[in-house]
């Protein structure tokens, strides 16, 4: 460990431990826990909803709180999977497979305790990983020129398309539509206003907050109010939280493997946390001496995926913080928040705003510790939150969204725009398309156009510039291979295999 890293960490500790930042971290982690428990309210929706309000506070505090919501939700999603067989977050679906059987055997407390412990473990390991690997990655990224950035953005977009699609061609269309929406507004090179249809509201481009609130929050409410979900009244008793010696012996290997799988898969753009929890489950089942225990309350089936899920949720931050490339929709929103706060995302964030980066890293560790304390003793409270019917919640969700969208530019135009995107999101759902590529397209569009134009300006219009630069060529090759690679690791393939193996 170098002297430099220690200096950075002590700066981070100073930033994260100021009373305001400590409170924002606690607020974020608590909100995240609530959101993680409630089905129908995910981290992306919550971040989209609260994002405009965070512009009133300093960038570092805002990012600390939004991050808390994100990893807090991943942390808590497993609670309802274990107690009620209902994933609070899509990423916790896998925890149902063995967590709920454990609860029915009267071992709910043990499952919750293991889940909390491995989450904390994965959180600690991955916070260290962020601290260790981000600076060298950013140093490499500083060498990237326009051709490298162009092909890297392309690679990120194709990855997220491949990972989140049920239909490759339709999801690709969604991403291109997002890129096109990104071209609306003033062209920075010439000052010409494009595709604004004479509206003042579009001169600065399509507001990403309107889009996110529309396609995530509004479309989500539309999907949920039709189906008033039926919630099981009874819940398993929590008798003992203490795992047996055998539980611990079985869990720690799974937690290590899960952390490694999640830590690596979380780096990739796309649905990292979900895929990595599936992958971890498949791995645990295949290396187990007695695979028949899986699905019947095997503790490894909780420990591995839960560690992977949380590891991925944290390493998901690395591409956003070091390269300025968001790995998913929640990260895209945080990137957007940075831009609005006047911080240009990219490798220079770490050197120009060290307090922001290192404060965030330390707050993540702090937040994970808070979650460990929050989750276990208060588990009864969180589970009781489920008794709140959705019909009481959604008017409040809609109101927060509307006021949030409005307050960004004090413009009702943005509210109407969000309505339009809500309808679009509703339509996309009906076509089986994930909305994430649309948001990533919108956020990455201007960056892609700028780098594409600069690359071709420097090469005098020669497209071969993208294969003459070795790193850029590498990105292109990976992009071309992605559809084949993920035929085997796609969500559907993993789901199929985790079923077949049992």
């Amino acid at each position, binding site marked *: 460990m170098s002297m430099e890293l220690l200096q950075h960490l002590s700066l981070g500790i100073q930033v994260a431990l100021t009373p305001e930042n400590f409170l924002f971290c606690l607020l974020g982690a608590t909100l995240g826990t609530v959101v993680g428990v409630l089905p129908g309210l995910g981290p992306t929706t919550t971040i989209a909803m609260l994002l405009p309000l965070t512009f009133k506070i300093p960038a570092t505090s805002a990012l600390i709180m939004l991050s808390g919501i994100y990893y807090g939700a991943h942390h808590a999603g497993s609670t309802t999977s274990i107690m009620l067989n209902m994933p609070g977050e899509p990423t916790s679906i896998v925890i149902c497979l063995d967590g709920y059987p454990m609860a029915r055997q009267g071992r709910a407390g043990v499952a919750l305790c293991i889940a909390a412990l491995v989450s904390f473990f994965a959180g600690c390991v991955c916070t260290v990983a962020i601290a260790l690997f981000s600076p060298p990655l950013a140093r490499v990224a500083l060498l990237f020129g326009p051709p490298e950035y162009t092909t890297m953005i392309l690679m990120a977009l194709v990855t997220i398309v491949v990972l989140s699609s049920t239909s490759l061609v339709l999801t690709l269309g969604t991403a291109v539509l997002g890129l096109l929406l990104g071209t609306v507004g003033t062209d920075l090179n010439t000052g010409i206003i494009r595709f604004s249809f004479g509206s003042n509201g579009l001169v600065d481009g399509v507001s990403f907050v309107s889009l996110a609130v529309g396609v995530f929050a509004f479309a989500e409410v539309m999907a949920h109010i039709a189906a008033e979900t039926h919630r099981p009244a009874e819940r398993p008793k929590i008798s003992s939280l203490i795992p047996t010696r055998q539980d611990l012996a079985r869990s720690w290997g799974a937690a290590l493997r899960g952390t490694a799988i999640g830590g690596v898969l979380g780096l990739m753009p796309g649905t990292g946390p979900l895929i990595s929890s599936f992958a971890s489950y498949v791995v645990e089942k295949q290396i187990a001496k007695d695979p028949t225990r899986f699905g019947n309350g095997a503790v490894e089936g909780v420990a591995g995926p839960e560690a992977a899920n949380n590891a991925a949720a944290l390493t998901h931050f690395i591409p956003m913080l070091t390269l300025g490339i968001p790995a998913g929709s929640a990260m895209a929103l945080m990137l957007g928040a940075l831009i609005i706060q006047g911080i240009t995302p990219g490798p220079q964030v770490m050197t120009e705003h060290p307090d922001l980066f290192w404060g965030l890293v330390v707050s993540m560790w702090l937040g994970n510790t808070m979650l460990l304390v929050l989750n276990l003793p208060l588990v009864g409270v969180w589970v009781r939150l489920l008794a709140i019917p959705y019909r009481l919640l959604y008017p409040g969700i809609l109101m927060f969204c509307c006021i949030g969208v409005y307050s960004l530019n004090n413009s009702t135009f943005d509210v109407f725009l969000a309505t339009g995107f*809500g309808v679009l999101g509703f339509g996309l759902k009906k076509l089986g398309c994930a909305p994430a590529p649309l948001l990533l397209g919108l956020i990455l569009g201007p960056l892609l156009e700028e780098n594409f134009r600069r690359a071709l300006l420097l090469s005098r219009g020669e497209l071969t510039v993208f294969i003459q630069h070795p790193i850029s060529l590498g990105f292109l090759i990976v992009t071309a291979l992605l559809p084949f690679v993920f035929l085997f690791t796609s969500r559907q393939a993993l789901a199929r295999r985790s079923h077949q193996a049992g």
Partner: protein
Amino acid sequence: MTTGRLFWGGLVFFGVGSAWAVLAASYPIGTASKMGPGYFPLVLAVLLAVIGLIAITQAALTPSDAPVQMRPFWPCVVVSAAVVAFGLLLDTAGLVPAVLGLVVISGGQRLRSRPLELLIIATILATGATLLFIRGLQLPLAVFQFGEQ
């Protein structure tokens, strides 16, 4: 030939792509080495139209294109109407009427069965929003107002 997700999705992408290409072509295009404001959007729009055509072709070749299930459609209408009403009322009548409108319209289907519940939610949200957003966060919003300002 089945008309399911691929077909309709493809048709929409083709339509939007083509229209956007026509729009983009009305801006200066320039050359690859010195792109005008229309160049990049034109490339993307053509790409979107091509993706739409590929989807339609796929739909024509596959026997089982998953059908588009638009029903129930009312949630889309109700939520949109509630949000639009919020926007209109916020500009003309203030925050409290806007919140009331939002709650009543979005919960419209329960207006008969649970009127009291809706009233309570509306009261709590309107009070909470006034305290949090106007008193607390000092957003430039009027609690009540008459006519556009």
